[in-house]
């Protein structure tokens, strides 16, 4: 009994202390009515302003880059009397002699990117399906970090790998006399679009695997069970239910991979050749847009020169290309998103 009373008294005392604490924190008029108006909160305001600045900085950077690219490109178009049609359809890129056709560079970018996607898409999707649907948990846990390792290799290493391994390998296969090439003519030049394209595909592969696997594993278990419950085999379930349901995510993965291929510089700078060449044959040398910018801007380049301004027009073209791909990716994701529930 006694101890119970004590405990009760203690409780009263502690409530009293708590009241005192809160009395100091809460504000009140002299007559005891509470003050409910806002008080100054400097940290809240500072945090909000800092966060706004962070968000704005990225937007302003983008706008700034776009303005500089647009401005310098515009100078090229005005100073050289260049028309947009001429720029987009011209088949020769020789700024010194007044030829500003983007096609030689654009075609090389398209060739290397398409080859990269032809390598990365089927392999990446296949690997994603295996990892997500077939692989035992332990194997999957072991393979994923290895894939991420592949994504961490610097692209200059990939470029070196293209020129010192893939190109000689392909030249050995294609150029030596064989059933398809009885005379041993040089089909594949030392600088070409195939070798860097394949290597870019390997570079992009982890991105496709990782994004596609996320898309596949997001397909609800209930849909798989529905399919199995109707007597579908594993592969039928994958083809008819899981892949269609994951389509938007897979499409987004492919577009992201394609954007990386279009923007990739080091691999093509090393292995695709040192000069523009308008030829849709991927076996011959041809410099891509990115490789051309890298080569020209690393030499002597005087401000306001034709070469200088022409680089910005390539940069702007690249910008619109990747912007277009990103918009396409968003559109596909929204358009084909399957609402499961």
């Amino acid at each position: 009994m006694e101890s119970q009373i004590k405990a009760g008294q203690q409780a009263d005392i502690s409530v009293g202390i708590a009241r005192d604490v809160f009395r100091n924190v809460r504000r009140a008029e002299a007559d005891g009515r509470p003050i409910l108006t806002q008080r100054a909160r400097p940290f809240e305001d500072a945090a909000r302003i800092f966060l706004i600045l962070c968000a704005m900085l990225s937007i302003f950077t983008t706008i700034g880059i776009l303005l500089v690219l647009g401005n310098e490109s515009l100078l090229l178009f005005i100073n050289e009397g260049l028309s947009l049609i001429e720029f987009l359809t011209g088949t020769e890129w020789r700024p010194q002699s007044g030829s500003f056709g983007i096609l030689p560079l654009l075609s090389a970018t398209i060739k290397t990117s398409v080859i990269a996607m032809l390598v990365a898409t089927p392999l990446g999707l296949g690997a994603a399906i295996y990892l997500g649907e077939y692989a035992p948990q332990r194997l999957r846990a072991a393979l994923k970090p290895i894939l991420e390792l592949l994504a961490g290799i610097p692209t200059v290493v990939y470029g070196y790998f293209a020129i010192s391994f893939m190109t000689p390998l392909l030249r050995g296969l294609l150029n030596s006399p064989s059933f398809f090439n009885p005379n041993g003519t040089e089909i594949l030049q030392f600088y070409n679009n195939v070798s860097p394209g394949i290597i870019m595909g390997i570079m992009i592969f982890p991105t496709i695997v990782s994004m596609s696997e996320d898309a596949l594993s997001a397909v609800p278990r209930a849909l798989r069970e529905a399919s199995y419950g109707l007597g579908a085999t594993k592969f039928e379930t994958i083809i008819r239910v899981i892949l269609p349901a994951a389509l938007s995510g897979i499409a987004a993965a492919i577009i992201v991979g394609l954007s990386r291929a279009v923007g990739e510089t080091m691999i093509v700078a090393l292995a695709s050749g040192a000069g523009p060449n308008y030829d849709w044959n991927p076996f011959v040398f041809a410099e891509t847009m990115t490789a051309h910018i890298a080569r020209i801007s690393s030499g002597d380049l005087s401000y306001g020169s034709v070469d200088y301004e022409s680089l910005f027009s390539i940069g702007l073209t690249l910008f619109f290309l990747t912007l277009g791909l990103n918009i396409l990716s968003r559109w596909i994701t929204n358009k084909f998103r399957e609402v499961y529930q």
Partner: protein
Amino acid sequence: MSATNSGSAYSFELKDMNVYYSDKLAVDSVTLSIQARKITAFIGPSGCGKSTVLRALNRMNDLIPGAKVTGDVRFMGRNLYDPNVDPVEVRRRIGMVFQKPNPFPKSIYDNVAYGPRLLGIRQKSTLDDIVENSLKSAFLWDEVKGDLKKSGLALSGGQQQRLCIARTIAVEPEVILMDEPCSALDPIATQAIEDLMLELVKKYTIVIVTHNMGQAQRVSDFTAFYSIRKAAEADGIERRWGLLVEYAPTEQLFSRPTSEETERYIRGEFG
């Protein structure tokens, strides 16, 4: 041909069936026979293994890593767990309707035609007939006949569940397993599914897991009551497994249960 021609009065005969998940006993020694073209209800508290037993009947447990079934499980006289038995073939004869309606994100037509297409039926007119008949059998035809191209997900929950039933009967199974098919539905949609079950049982064997004892009483011919057993392990971890307590004609099980545990459960004292 469908179940109407099968000789045996029983669709399933289970003898001492145990189910294990990763070597841990989940369901202990179930022995029961399920009559053909009757509705058999599985009732019992959560975790008693009634869904596990149901999923053992069409080898759906195979999809869960570490799941293992021992004992004798016969479907129309055949051992379901014989090494030569292909679970894919099993599931083509034993359809399943799930707790949450799970139509594919495809059109109503493609949902129903999914199973027949798997079986290799490609002819448009045949598929049209199957889709129409299945939707009619699922009491859904009148509501959707105008727009079979509409996504199955655009339907209401109750309609979705009837679409899933139509999809299941489109492959003419012998048995339809239903895992709490009404637990996500409102009372009116539930009523529609119950009416449908009473119609379907003329042609198919139905096994239904339900939490709703009223539902078991309204629709089923036989009821199996499962419960939970617990034991403390040496390491102090408690282990639980399910077992079959009582199996009888529904009317008898609810009015004159032989087990005191069944009686307490149906009076709502636990579970």
